[in-house]
């Protein structure tokens, strides 16, 4: 009997030890508790450089906690301290914030808390914001709030959505045109006909609810799946989180459930910052992928350029869609690093 107990205990010891070996243990990790949310922050990379970049993930409802595995972020970490954080009720953010706290304005206050924390905990010489998609929208909203843009050295907006009505209308146009082309080519005619019927039945996205938005998102993803470009470059090393990341990283199942709790309470489809962009004095780098159907160019870039006074934009990045950092990392990094180096004088 004792032999059985001993064998069992040895097996459990092995289970315990193997569980602890593979965690992602690098960098600094904290949580900020604010207004009901417990927000994770992961600081990685070259924190000794004094140059920090706060990464604002997309969504709303996404996560930044596996972005450090993309080639482009690993390259950026060699030069800068990168601050990954998950917004309230998004990704692996915890707590139990009230539905009333799920507003873009409160997300701005969360970002301000992150920014203040980084400035107080580290010797930051230069602080940048980098936002992807909704994270770009959040970054620009942050800059147009009070005096928050002070001491922000620069902002990088990757395929942002500063004008959601324009974004949605142009995106729907792209998807509809794509659907018509698919029908003309006798490709999955029933599905693409349904797509056109959906957009005809629900023509005004500013009054959509979650169901309509999710239907739109499904069709958008379908265009991305069926759209192929001979030059499209997907980073080979890492294309998204897999089993290793789910089981041996800070990621959890909440990243799949949090968006469903967030989206019914935070509808950003009528959010339009175009008129406020002129108040931004901070240098802004605009990056767009030429094949982005989510936030299409040239319409979205033109609107940003017409309203911003401090922008840098070198045209759409070729061979890229909604995530140039992933799809064309070399060109993305070239523009990103040039922008920062010009501002910090390297």
């Amino acid at each position, binding site marked *: 009997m004792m032999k059985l107990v001993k064998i069992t205990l040895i097996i459990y010891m092995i289970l315990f030890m193997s569980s602890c070996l593979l965690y992602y243990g690098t960098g600094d990790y*904290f*949580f900020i*508790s604010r207004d009901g949310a*417990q927000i994770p922050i992961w600081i990685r990379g070259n924190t000794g450089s004094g140059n920090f970049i706060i990464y604002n993930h997309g969504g709303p409802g996404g996560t930044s906690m596996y972005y450090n595995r993309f080639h482009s972020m690993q390259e950026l970490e060699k030069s800068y301290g990168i601050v990954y954080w998950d917004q309230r009720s998004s990704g692996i953010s915890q707590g139990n914030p009230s*539905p009333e706290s799920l507003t873009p304005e409160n997300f701005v206050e969360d970002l301000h808390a992150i920014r203040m*924390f980084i400035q107080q905990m580290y010797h930051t010489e230069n602080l940048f914001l980098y936002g992807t998609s909704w994270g770009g929208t959040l970054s620009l909203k942050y800059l147009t709030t009070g005096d928050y843009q002070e001491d922000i050295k620069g902002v990088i907006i990757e395929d942002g959505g500063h004008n959601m009505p324009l974004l949605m209308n142009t995106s729907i146009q792209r998807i509809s045109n794509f659907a018509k082309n698919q029908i003309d080519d006798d490709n999955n005619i029933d599905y693409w006909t349904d797509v056109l019927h959906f957009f005809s039945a629900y023509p005004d996205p500013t009054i959509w609810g979650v169901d309509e938005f999710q239907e739109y998102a499904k069709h958008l993803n379908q265009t991305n799946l069926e759209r192929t470009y001979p030059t499209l470059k997907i980073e080979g090393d890492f294309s998204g989180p897999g089993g290793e990341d789910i089981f041996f990283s800070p990621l959890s199942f909440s990243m799949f459930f949090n968006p469903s709790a967030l989206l019914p309470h935070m509808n950003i489809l009528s959010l339009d910052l175009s008129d406020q962009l002129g108040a931004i004095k901070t240098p802004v780098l605009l990056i767009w992928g030429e094949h982005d159907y989510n936030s299409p160019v040239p319409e979205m870039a033109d609107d940003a350029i017409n309203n911003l006074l401090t922008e840098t934009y070198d045209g759409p990045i070729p061979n890229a869609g909604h995530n140039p950092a992933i799809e064309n990392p070399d060109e993305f990094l070239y523009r990103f690093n040039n922008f920062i180096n010009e501002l910090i004088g390297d």
Partner: protein
Amino acid sequence: MSLSKLKILLLSICFLNTYLIFSGDNKTNELSDKISINISYLGELGVHPGITLGIGYTAYSNSWYELTPQFNVSWYIHRRNHQSFIMELDFLQKAKLPSGAFLEMASGFGFILTRPDAPVYIYDDEIFIEDGFPWSPKFQVSIFGGGGWTFEGEHPIDLYLNLGSFLEYPFNSYWLPHGAIHTGIRYSF
């Protein structure tokens, strides 16, 4: 299965268990024969390690079936995500098979204390104060199923492996499901 259906299922199991406890034959008569203790590895998603300790009271038993309410306390850690401390009452139902094997299912409820697994700083008006007790109490329900082997003797020992799920509420206003395994030993006095 939707969460509302899961809640109905768990409640139904609880009612059935209560009925069995207060009805039917019970071959176990001595109080000391009815007590068991258990210790198990709790792996949230299998690999986030923890431990469960429990004590059970076999309320109903016949030649092929046992019903044992258990009180369990558990702790586990998901590094850089969260730690949890669980106190739970569950109902363990065991179907005994020939030659010592058994199938079992446990369903229960209780509460769970969770905290982020990293320093937590409370932010207020551009001031940060480290939270000395960042634990949050929540409700918890669970359901596990699996099987094992009974090593017969004066004091039988069960070796078991159960897979299942527990849910915590409120987590961002919803029931957050966790997958988990329990594997351990149960010692009967």
